[in-house]
């Protein structure tokens, strides 16, 4: 195409289109110094950036004592998870990472780019001053992605491989939890579940979203139901939960649950936190799903009835798949919010990342390393949340949600 056009220009003597490239000076004038007001803005903004960057760099390179992070890295990430059981954490990571690889081998597109990121992270991480054993485990994750990718390619076109993929993702959820927690009789149960550090933040968000999705779908359907009793109860639940802060629900779970349950049922702290975050998230999920349901045109219902589908089947086969597809970005957004909210677990004496950092600060050796720890926590959350919001924006684009 480009070649043809060039010949056309040469033959007929038509001028080529103006170059896309703008000279540096003109770019500066257009983007930075368009008017005197703009010039002042540029100077002020540049000054702000310089001061902040200079201050940060000077602190990070000279004053900060970063050894607090690598020394306590295990404590921060997995808390008191016993060293001899660490293979279970790695096995969980390998399982998830393998599934990423498998999916990208099977599908390509966005998921492949995500998997490339997943595989690139361990290679970057090995630069950090970590013990050689840990480096080996980390590099293994890249290998797991590769194995998954290979198997995915092989299975491409096979109709069983897609079912295998779905089953894998669905099963990975209970398998991970059983693997980490332990199963009576097979794997020893790990004690001190409330001190797992960053793992609890991740688990909290995954469990919260995973369990709240079905509940949220039911609540959303209930809120749109034609039956007034069901509609009223669902609406009341959604609005009550959305009207109060999560931390007050956590407070309620920490002191009220033992009053509301019979004396022989005493769920431990982590279970309580997970129940709370699920109940909380379900209300928000319901509103997201309701948004998706409202976006389905009436013709879809009518067409389904015309084909002879009954109410339940219409919902499950026709409406929900479309509605859920449309709200994937919103669900990712909720996942990010929930992930950030898991830092509130510290309120009910759960040692997640933020709270465990405070117990490290209580140690005399690390007193005063507060900036380093908070910057580290901020960066960890930032990287994960930013990546997820990037992925969600890409999904939005591929789904064309914005355009419809």
């Amino acid at each position, binding site marked *: 195409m480009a070649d043809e056009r060039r010949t056309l220009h040469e033959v007929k003597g038509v001028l080529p289109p103006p170059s896309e490239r703008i000279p540096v000076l003109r770019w500066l004038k257009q983007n930075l110094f368009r008017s005197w007001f703009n010039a002042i803005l540029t100077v002020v903004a540049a000054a702000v950036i310089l001061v902040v960057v200079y201050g940060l760099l000077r602190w990070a390179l000279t004053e900060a004592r970063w050894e607090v992070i690598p020394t306590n890295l295990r404590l921060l990430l997995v808390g008191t998870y016993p060293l001899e059981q660490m293979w279970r954490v790695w096995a969980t990571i390998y399982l998830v990472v393998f599934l990423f690889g498998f999916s990208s081998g099977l599908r390509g597109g966005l998921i492949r780019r995500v998997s490339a990121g997943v595989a690139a992270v361990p290679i970057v991480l090995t630069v950090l001053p970590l013990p050689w054993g840990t480096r080996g485990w980390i590099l293994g994750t890249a290998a797991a992605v590769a194995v998954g990718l290979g198997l995915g390619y092989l299975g491409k076109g096979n109709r069983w491989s897609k079912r295998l993929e779905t089953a894998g993702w669905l099963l990975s959820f209970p398998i991970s939890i059983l693997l980490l927690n332990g199963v009576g009789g097979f794997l020893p149960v790990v004690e001190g579940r409330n001190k797992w550090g960053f793992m609890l933040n991740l688990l909290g968000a995954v469990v919260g979203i995973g369990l709240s999705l079905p509940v949220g779908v039911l609540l959303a359907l209930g809120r749109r139901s034609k039956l007034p009793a069901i509609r009223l109860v669902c609406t009341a639940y959604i609005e009550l939960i959305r009207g109060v802060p999560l931390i*007050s629900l956590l407070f309620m779970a920490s002191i009220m649950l033992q009053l509301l349950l019979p004396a022989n049922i005493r769920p431990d702290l982590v279970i309580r936190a997970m129940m709370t975050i699920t109940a909380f998230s379900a209300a928000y999920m319901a509103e997201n799903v309701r948004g998706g349901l409202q976006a389905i045109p009436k013709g879809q219902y009518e067409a389904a009835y015309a084909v002879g589908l009954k109410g339940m089947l219409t919902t499950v086969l026709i409406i929900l798949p479309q509605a859920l597809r449309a709200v994937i970005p919103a669900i990712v957004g909720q996942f990010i919010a929930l992930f950030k*909210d898991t830092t509130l677990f510290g309120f009910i004496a759960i040692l997640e990342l933020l709270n465990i950092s405070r117990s490290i600060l209580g140690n005399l050796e690390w007193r005063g390393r507060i900036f380093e720890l908070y910057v580290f926590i901020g960066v960890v959350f930032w990287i994960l949340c930013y990546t997820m919001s990037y992925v969600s924006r890409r999904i939005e684009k591929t789904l064309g949600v914005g355009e419809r």
Partner: protein
Amino acid sequence: MEKRKVVSSHAIPFWRDIRVLRVVSQIVFLVAIAAGIWWLLNNLQTNLRNSGLSITFRFLGDTAGFPISEGLTYDPTNVNVYAFLVGVVNTIRVAVIGIVLATIIGTLVGISRLSSNWLVRRLAALYVETVRNIPLLVQLFFWYFAVMLTALPLVKDSISLPGSIYLSRRGLYLPSLVPTASFSVWLWFLLGGLALAIVVYVLRRAQLKRADRPGIPIGWAAIALVLVAVAGWFIVSGNPLSIDLPVLKRFNFEGGLWLSTPFASLVLGLAMYTGAFIAEIVRAGILAVSKGQTEAAKALGLRKALVLRLVVMPQALRVIIPPLASQYLNLTKNSSLAILIGYYDLLNVGTTIFNQTGRAVEMILLIMGSYLTMSLFMSLLMNLYNRRIKLVER
């Protein structure tokens, strides 16, 4: 017609009749919910009886007995319910100041993200992406524990800023205005000025409407108010307000207005965090106004500022208001994180009362009830405003 109906109702057995099914399914659902609630309440009753408690709100009249360092005038000998009220007022104080600041930050950053200046645009985007993707609690801890409690000096060597403002680990001390004896007289002038301002506003509004011109004549009303207030200031004998400067005594400052460090960190953290979300809402709202509108306004010869104020903003507001309202609600709910940095908001006072009295059910009802009331009140206000703005649409 009559005959066919009879036939059809005979043809469908009752367990497949949609009308019967509807009623039955609702009854089953309600019974299931009621059974669940009954089970929970039954457990509650058993558990309470075992620990020798009963549900009563009489403890609210007992002496609180714990200190609250800021907010309304309060003494540990005051009753529990008053202590709780102090907490509620503190929450409202944080929420109102936070909302105002967050709106200012959000609007500025949101407009900056659409600036024609590359550097400003990037800086605003950097701010939004950084602040949005870090948990609010981490930010609050950062401001409170890392910045305010370690980077600021002790009280005895406070940073003193011009105008008798002192900054230290204890907080920010500002000069405050204290009413004097002649204040009550001047208050009448103030009220009169307010009345005049309202009259001016209504008249000018009607005049604008007759001329079919847009605009909210808030400036005219403000001028009327200020004129009367200033006139009153000179007419009344002696200054109605005196300035109270904070003075460093042996251990601490006395006098003046005190904003505690937890309060300052909470307001700062909430305003910056919510401001980033509001910036995105403002940006989306402005982008939602089609470009033709701006071009048409420019073609009419309006200046850039007027284009924004008279053409873009009124249309953008319709898109902005609903999500903005939910951000305001979020800020109010997020102010409950105060408990983790030691500010006495309603949750903090509520849990303290619970710790003192052991009244779990009652305190949770009170706390949840307060938050729900605030949320409902706020969404009511926002819905009213939203409706008013929508009326402009034709």
